[in-house]
């Protein structure tokens, strides 16, 4: 549910980048941060463990266009991808408005993608949410690398609800903003339908 501050006339929308470990969630946020105007972005809060993995969550607020006279802020979050941190992930998913599922298209990560998606569905269910009802897009990341999975096959398993998909290479920035625009559109559309 969006957090709407009627006094300041600000709508805060929570978008969570979800996916298996090392799929490129933080890279997405870093690229968005680097390429966004100073006036439109907050600080990128991103802490890493010694092993350079996300600690708890990354967080980046950015401003987008006004909706019905309300300033709209997208709060972008990433979750720690490693299986161990499920409790953290669950916490971050609370009151989520939109999900970007970042999938790592390298062959050895096939199962990890599916497990992460299952985990997402389970965690959402614990809050009584059904993924079908939440604006979601899927980003197929690391398209520039060799040894990638047959996307048709992966998509058939990963995306039974036919969420919009975006091919990306977050390290170079390809597809990053397309993905963000994709999810923003869905989230705003849902908000306007309320």
């Amino acid at each position, binding site marked *: 549910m969006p*957090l709407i*501050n*009627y*006094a*300041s*006339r600000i709508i*805060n929308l*929570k978008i969570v980048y979800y996916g*298996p*470990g*090392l799929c490129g969630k933080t890279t997405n946020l870093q690229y968005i941060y680097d390429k966004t105007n100073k006036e439109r972005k*907050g*600080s990128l*809060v991103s*802490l890493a*463990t*010694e*092993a*350079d*993995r996300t*600690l*708890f*969550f990354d*967080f980046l*607020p950015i401003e987008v266009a006004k909706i019905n006279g309300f300033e709209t802020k997208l*709060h972008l*979050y990433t979750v720690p991808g*490693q*299986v*161990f*941190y*499920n*409790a*953290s992930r669950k*916490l*971050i998913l*609370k*009151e989520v408005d939109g999900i970007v599922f970042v999938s790592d298209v*390298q*062959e*050895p*990560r096939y*199962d*990890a993608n599916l*497990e992460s998606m299952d985990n997402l569905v*389970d965690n959402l269910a614990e809050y*009584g949410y059904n993924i079908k009802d939440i604006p979601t897009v899927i980003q197929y990341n*690391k398209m520039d*690398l060799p*040894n990638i999975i047959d996307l048709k096959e992966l998509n058939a398993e990963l995306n039974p609800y036919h969420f919009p998909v975006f091919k990306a290479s977050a390290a170079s920035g390809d597809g990053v903003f397309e993905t963000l625009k994709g999810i923003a559109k869905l989230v705003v559309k849902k908000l306007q339908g309320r």
Partner: protein
Amino acid sequence: MDKNKKRKVEQSALKYMTKGVFNKAIKEYEHLLKFFPDELTYLKQVAKCYENINQPQDALRYYSRLVENYKKRGLYKQAIAIYSIMMGLGETKEEIYDDLAFCYKEINRAGDATLVYRKLLENYMKKALFRSAVSVASKILEINPEDTIAIINAAEAQLQLNDKNRSIELFKIAAQIYKKQNNLAMYTKILGRINHVSGNSDAKILNELASIYIIQRNYGEQLLELLLKAYRISKEAKDDDTLIETTKLLVTFFKETNQRKQMLSIRFELAKIYERIGEKEKALETYNKILQIAPGSQDVRKKAKELQQEIQKLNKPETIPSSIPKLEPIENKTVISRPIPKKESTITELELKNILREVDTYIKFKLFAKAEPILKDLYKKYPKISGVTKRLKEIYIKTHKIEQAVELLFDLFEKLYKKDKEKARDYLEEIIYIDSENKKANKYINKFYNDSVSPKIEDIPETFTLDESTIVEAKDVINDEIIETITIDDDSLGIDINDDYDLEQIKFYISQGLFENAKLELDKKLKISPNDPELLTLLSQLEQAVKPIIINDNLSNGHEDIQEDVDDILKQFKKGIDESISKDDAKTRYDLGIAYKAMGLLDDAINEFKLVYRHVEKKGDCLLMIGLCYNDKTEFEKAIKYFKKALEYSENLNQKLAIYYEIANAYDLLGNFKNAFSIFKKISQKDKTFRDAYKRLKQLHVKLKADKNNISYL
């Protein structure tokens, strides 16, 4: 009646109406109605005339006919308008509400239909017409199956009709809806009601209530009372699932209230329950948790050991023990040792490799007592494998068993002498290093130096009988290449490791359930090569291996474990934030507050907003956000306090209305419907379209009436 006559009478009736001679007008219209009984205009005019001469009952009679005609013709909007006039005339028949709601439904105004049905429901409840109330409630539920007011009223009505089971069932549905909506206040109230109706006898409900107390960190005596009651009930009912849930909640209670002894004792109970119902791995896990806190508890240690042996018997040797706690100290790890094959001829390379990896882990964590018997056994069976001998020697040195170490060093010297004299000499030097007075070693080493190269073969004692055939025999057992891989140098106890060894070690950690160690190693490697396919495969394996544990966590709903992890991570995270983001960075701190709030980390959110509050430009906003956090914490009085403070900083009408709305909402949640009503009324007077203030006003009207009827939670 012909057309001319009809027109004349109509004109006459209209004339009388205009002049205010209503009696005569009525006569004219009634005359017309004899010929045209369904003529809408006549019916409407007669009704109006009766209204004007203050005869409401007669007016209602005609309005009733009029409305029936509208409905017949499908003119539902007109019918609705007439119903509204009829209600204004004091029509109280229940049917009218039913019909009105029907009309609303026909024109797809489900919300209005619901409001009308609710009114009807309220009337039936007031008049104790419970069957009718149930029937209306089901009509509301046809429109919206999650209408909690209808469900609760139906539950109350069923209770009055002596159908307690159905009543409880309905209350439970309402409770689930509130839970889903995160409306903790109402959820708690309904659970309390279920508890009351069921006569305090439903352990599951008592558990639910207790969970809420725990979420709210309300660790008073009431919580303990609830839990003990639930414990007694579920135990008597032999309901093991509920009993386990209760016992876990008791563990949390004693843990949070620092009652260590009771916490351990109840954990012990939990382990016994698991054992009784055959959940051996969970039982073992629970015993291990006790041992983490009370390592000296011999009874528990004994039980854990017995259980571990039982599990070992049941499991295949390769099975990853799912009961291994994730973060416990290595001393308490329940690593299942791989059995050493009895006959020399039966050992495979892989088996030996795995055993030695396990031993290395013990050595790395200084668990020499565990490593020593395994190595001794291996040494006895395979005296020619230098990797075994070296490890055992190392343990003897570390545990100051110098005599045994020296014996093994001579053994190593003998084995290597023919192959590489220089290296063999190193063993002699090592003997002298740990036992400088050792005569034999000194003699041999002197020989080495005196002869400048090496002692002559004839000087070597008889025991030096290693010949080619022996080497071949050793190779039959295990090939040299493998021995090389697994034979480690002195510094191999965790220092000098090559890439392959790292990967093997990670694999070993995974296979042994040492997931934390595996993760650490893997993270290190991934930092250097994040896209290395082999590492990624290992990561998947690791995730796969950890999965059962995570699932177990989820299934067990173990508040303590999951919470402890997150608390720890959050602590690290906040520390990192404090180090990297200035407390004066109002914008980022405010955003963090929003992030924490969205995650339900309300105290942390409040802290961030309080930090930002120091900045002039954000004061009002922060107070509002703090108030909202207190609302989420169900501390509505505090929330109101902050909202009222926020009002002082509001700069325009819109801001004022927004804050007043929050105050009214908090009063509503607090159960102070009167204040809520009055504020919503003021908001609606200023701006009827402000959010859903007007709708809330109408709902509160219903609530206030229900209050009078002593159904306080409505």
